[in-house]
């Protein structure tokens, strides 16, 4: 019997308790998600009930709020901002991070451990604490309230992860391949471009997607760095900005749009997440 696949015998009573525990847990987890979706397909009468209790299922479920959203120029504007910033952040992080991951993942440099430690420590510093200095710096650099500012900030946040994931990707390439290339006469640059980089692409793709999502969801830096310039607001900032003004179905619809990329990606990748955390500790 393998270590994980064990069926433990349980008395019927215990099975019932535990089964209802699972049901309750699923309800706690999925309930809010359901409500979010429900609000996004609610018609006006299901929201402005005038004192009547809000229905658990809308009176007339409709996708009209989505069609409103998708015809709103402001929404597209904000959506474009988010996409531009996220993609650029991916670009910049990969540009900086992939070479670093290549070096750290392929060679044993003296000081490697210290450097790695340093990279992790950067992320230990609270976002909200580092935001003020960054804003001040960007004001001095002239990139405050610009796309570039937000992109640079998001790159700062994502770079440690890109490097870590990238190191994993490069480390998993067998040493022999690189040495084979050398033996055949390739220099370091050619080896990297023709052999190592292509093989590392799956792992680097994960890093790219992670960076995209990080930037897509990011709020704190985007907020501090764009306050006052509504035209560069990301989707998250826009949502926050209208929360008092707009009805709940619109808020929910935007929320759903915000959440979709992440949920899809997480569900695809969750198998690896669980495995990654557990393999280290399994015998």
């Amino acid at each position: 019997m393998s270590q994980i696949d064990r069926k433990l015998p349980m008395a019927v009573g215990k099975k019932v308790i535990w089964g209802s525990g699972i049901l309750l847990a699923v309800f706690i987890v999925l309930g809010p998600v359901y409500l979010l979706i429900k609000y996004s397909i609610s018609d006006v009468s299901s929201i402005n009930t005038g004192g009547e209790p809000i229905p658990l299922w809308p009176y007339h479920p409709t996708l009209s709020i989505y069609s409103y959203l998708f015809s709103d120029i402001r929404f597209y504007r904000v959506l474009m901002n988010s996409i531009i910033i996220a993609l650029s952040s991916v670009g910049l992080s990969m540009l900086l991070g992939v070479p670093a991951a290549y070096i750290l993942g392929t060679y044993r440099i003296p000081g490697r451990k210290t450097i790695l430690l340093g990279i992790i420590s950067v992320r230990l510093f609270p976002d909200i604490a580092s935001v003020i200095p960054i804003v001040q710096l960007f004001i001095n650099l002239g990139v405050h309230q610009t796309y570039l500012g937000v992109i640079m900030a998001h790159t700062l946040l994502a770079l440690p992860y890109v490097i870590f994931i990238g190191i994993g990707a490069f480390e998993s390439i067998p040493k022999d391949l690189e040495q084979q290339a050398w033996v055949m006469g390739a220099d370091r640059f050619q080896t990297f471009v023709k052999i190592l980089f292509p093989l590392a692409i799956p792992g680097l793709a994960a890093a790219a997607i992670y960076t995209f999502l990080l930037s897509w969801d990011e709020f704190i830096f985007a907020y501090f760095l764009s306050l006052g310039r509504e035209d560069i607001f990301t989707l998250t900032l826009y949502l926050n900005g209208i929360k008092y003004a707009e009805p709940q179905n619109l808020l929910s619809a935007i929320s759903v749009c915000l959440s979709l990329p992440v949920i899809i990606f997480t569900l695809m990748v969750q198998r690896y997440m669980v495995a990654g955390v557990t393999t280290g500790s399994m015998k």
Partner: protein
Amino acid sequence: MRTDSKESFKDWVIRAWPLFPAALYLFGFLIIVFVYLACLSLSETSITTSFPTLNSFKELFNDDEFHSALVNTIVFTVIGTPLELIAGLIFAMLVYRTFFMRGLIRSIFLIPLAIPALVTAMLLFVLFDYPGGHVNHLLLGNYSIFPAVIDTPIGWRSSNLFAMGISLLGKIWRDMPISMLILLAGLNSIDPELFDAAKTMGASLRKRFSSIIIPLILPSIASVLLLRSVEMWKEFIFPFVLSGRNRLMGTLIDYYYNGLGNSHMAAAVAIIMVVCIVVSTIIILKSMEIIQNILYKR
């Protein structure tokens, strides 16, 4: 890879140069952050006082806003961290055994993490609306499945207690999967035959839990406490969306910087936050050490 001790700095540079842009970027920013924080917090808005000065800190300590924010954050952290541990542990124990559709249920349990924090905050914003959000209606007994607990709707976002409460609720709900995964890894590393052996020797479920599970997942518990406590100290999004006037240190920084335009006091709060994190980390590490000694030597 042998590292030749004679390898000069120059050789090292030649080998490692692709690393430099990223390293410079990261460490550069880090240094700048420290320098700016130090400078800002040690100076004041008025041009008359010289640098460095502790006036900003003094102003802070005299400010009621800061007092309440500090107290709020301490309570938030002290209550929230153990709650996150317990929530994660319960979920981890639920999915530890193999059962029909375990993989699916585990994936479902990861969903809160997948949802952007802002969205979760927004959702709570809507649910806990006053006077007519879902929760108010539920507690008023307007849904047949649930009895009436209160008779007037609660202003969730206006009272300090409730605002903190729903921020905490949102934070714990959203971050639970992380605790769950870490604790699950710890649980999976326990040899299942230990439970068999304990059972044959007469140990009840409670005994198995306290004598075997807890001592053996202590490292995982420590990780969860450390990571989650740091998160609690620096929390921004939930209180920002949900609790308006009642601030944690995170939203206090926003208040001073964007609201009052006082970057110095904002920086001072940031420094204090970092100090709190360091202190609480040390406290947690020391406590875990003590607990470990107790459990292993008894």
